């Protein structure tokens, strides 16, 4: 986005996010929801919309929706119902989508997240609602559209979705991306969805327009819905592009929200542009009405309480805990939380097994994450257990290992799981030097380096550093930090 543009308009964004809920079976039938099955093999009379077939709602989908609603601070409806949204499309076999119109399962809520533009600051997106609905199938169109028939795969038809609709509270592409990132993190912590954007488990549509200051008053550009945002990067790029496009458009046409209806654009990721799909005029009148094949749903307070108990700690709560209880820096806490529940649990176990939080944090950041990324492993696959890492950290704190030796041990453990610190030192020929030995070593050093001693006495505490190298020569296992401390003591006692 050009500087001039950036300074001259305010982007207004609201997001509609479709999340695939992690159920075994579809929303209204027993077909599997697994991704990647051969086309039209996960279908039955119900999800094919065969004449006479009837839907029966999936209990688990309802539970997951409630769980998500609670985590998003939503009011959960005590009474909710199903409605038909009528429109024709080949991947919608009934000619209507079973959705929720005027009584969604989750009412108003909100989500807080870090402001990407000013670290440490929080932003809040208010949520209008979150409702359950069935997914449509997949249409595969000919590359050169219009040449060949389109192919329809209905495996995805009837998969449970939760549509989370936000207020237009976002003010930049970066903020939109940050909100989505936090939302996905929360959903994966809840385990309500795998949020795999490549597989379509998390899909975002954005409603965008600009507020432009002109002659002391604010003019709004026509609202555009941008569809087909299937990566975080796409969201950010598409919104930046669309903001600029609307700005240019406004400068050219001067059209405001009063002059033009809402339009739908698609994001073309390859070309990096948004493309007009349809004008709102010829968009459908959905003729919602209660689905007579399904009965209303009543949610009891005990049902609600049960779900509430199963919520667990939110990423936001964990960040705070790591900063307050273990006083990690916000950045360090963020990195750990950002790695997901597993890494947080790993970190907690290291600390619980006696590793100091600060060291635990840096070991997780450097060594553990390196292992995860190099071998792209799951945390559960890391050969070094939290307990082992805790021992290693304690050994280092106790001084019988320096950090570089510690890393050797860690590396050794990767190839030899389940060994103890002692085993590792043994195998690596690391001997910890006992205090007496080290003291005489230091006295030798001081005797041999009167110049350094005098510099120190003159107040140059750094001078001792010069001795480390020599010490290492005398005994490679000597811990530099202990050498320094000991020498200092000896000199001070002499004074």
């Amino acid at each position, binding site marked *: 986005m050009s500087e001039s543009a950036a300074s001259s308009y305010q982007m207004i964004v609201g997001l509609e996010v479709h999340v695939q809920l992690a159920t075994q079976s579809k929303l209204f039938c027993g077909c*599997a929801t697994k991704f990647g099955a051969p086309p*039209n093999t996960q*279908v039955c009379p119900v999800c094919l919309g065969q004449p006479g077939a009837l839907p029966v709602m999936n*209990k688990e989908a309802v539970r997951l929706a409630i769980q998500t609603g609670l985590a998003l601070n939503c009011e959960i409806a005590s009474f909710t119902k199903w409605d038909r949204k009528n429109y024709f499309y080949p991947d919608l076999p009934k000619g209507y989508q079973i959705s929720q119109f005027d009584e969604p399962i989750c009412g108003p809520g909100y989500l807080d997240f870090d402001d990407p533009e000013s670290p440490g600051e929080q932003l809040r997106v208010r949520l209008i609602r979150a409702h359950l609905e069935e997914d449509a199938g997949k249409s595969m169109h000919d590359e*050169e559209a*219009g040449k060949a028939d389109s192919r329809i*795969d209905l495996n995805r038809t009837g998969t449970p979705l939760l549509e989370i609709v936000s207020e237009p509270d976002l003010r930049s592409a970066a903020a939109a991306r940050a909100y989505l990132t936090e939302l996905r993190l929360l959903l994966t912590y809840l385990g309500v969805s795998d949020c795999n954007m490549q597989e379509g488990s998390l899909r975002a549509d954005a409603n965008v327009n600009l507020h432009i200051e002109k002659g002391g008053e604010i003019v709004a550009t026509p609202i555009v819905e941008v569809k087909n945002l299937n990566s975080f990067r796409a969201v950010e790029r598409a919104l930046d592009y669309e903001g600029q496009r609307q700005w240019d458009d406004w400068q050219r046409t001067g059209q405001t929200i009063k002059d033009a209806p809402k339009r739908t654009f698609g994001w073309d990721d390859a070309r990096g542009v948004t493309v007009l799909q349809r004008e709102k005029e010829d968009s459908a009148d959905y003729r919602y009405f*209660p689905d*007579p094949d399904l*009965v209303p749903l009543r949610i009891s307070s005990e049902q609600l309480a049960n779900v509430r108990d199963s919520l667990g700690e939110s990423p936001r709560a964990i960040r705070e805990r790591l900063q307050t209880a273990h006083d990690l820096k916000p950045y360090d806490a963020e990195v750990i939380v950002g790695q997901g529940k597993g890494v947080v649990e790993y970190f907690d176990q290291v600390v619980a097994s006696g590793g100091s939080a600060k060291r635990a944090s840096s070991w997780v950041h450097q060594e553990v994450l390196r292992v995860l990324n190099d071998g792209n492993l799951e945390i559960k696959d890391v050969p070094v257990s939290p307990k082992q890492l805790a021992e290693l950290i304690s050994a280092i704190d106790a001084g019988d290992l320096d950090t570089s030796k510690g890393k050797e041990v860690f590396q050794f453990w990767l190839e030899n799981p389940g060994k103890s610190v002692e085993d590792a030192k043994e195998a690596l020929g690391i001997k910890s030097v006992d205090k007496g030995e080290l003291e005489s070593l230091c006295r030798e050093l001081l005797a041999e380096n009167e110049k350094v001693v005098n510099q120190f006495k003159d107040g140059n505490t750094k001078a001792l550093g010069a001795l480390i190298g020599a010490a290492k020569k005398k005994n490679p296992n000597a811990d530099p930090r202990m050498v320094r401390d000991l020498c200092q003591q000896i000199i001070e006692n002499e004074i």
Partner: protein
Amino acid sequence: MSLSRDDVAGVAKLAKLQFSSEEIDQLTDQLGRIVSFVDQLNQVDTEGVDTMAHPLDVESVVREDQLADSLDRADALKNAPNQDGEFFLVPPVMAK
């Protein structure tokens, strides 16, 4: 209320139905008569009366999240006007 030809044409578009202009005339007349017949409903005072979408007051009928058998693909596709053994085939969405 009375229905205009345009009303009828608009509804036909929504319903994905095509009619000749004679048919539209006929429907405008017939639907018009039916609509004015059902307009009798306005004589009934329904102040404070709830809508009744279901004849029974059954609630919260749910199933466990368990897998059931899907159809064989051949059965799923067997009634399709056009299919290739894997997919339902439809004419392209946009012409070229």
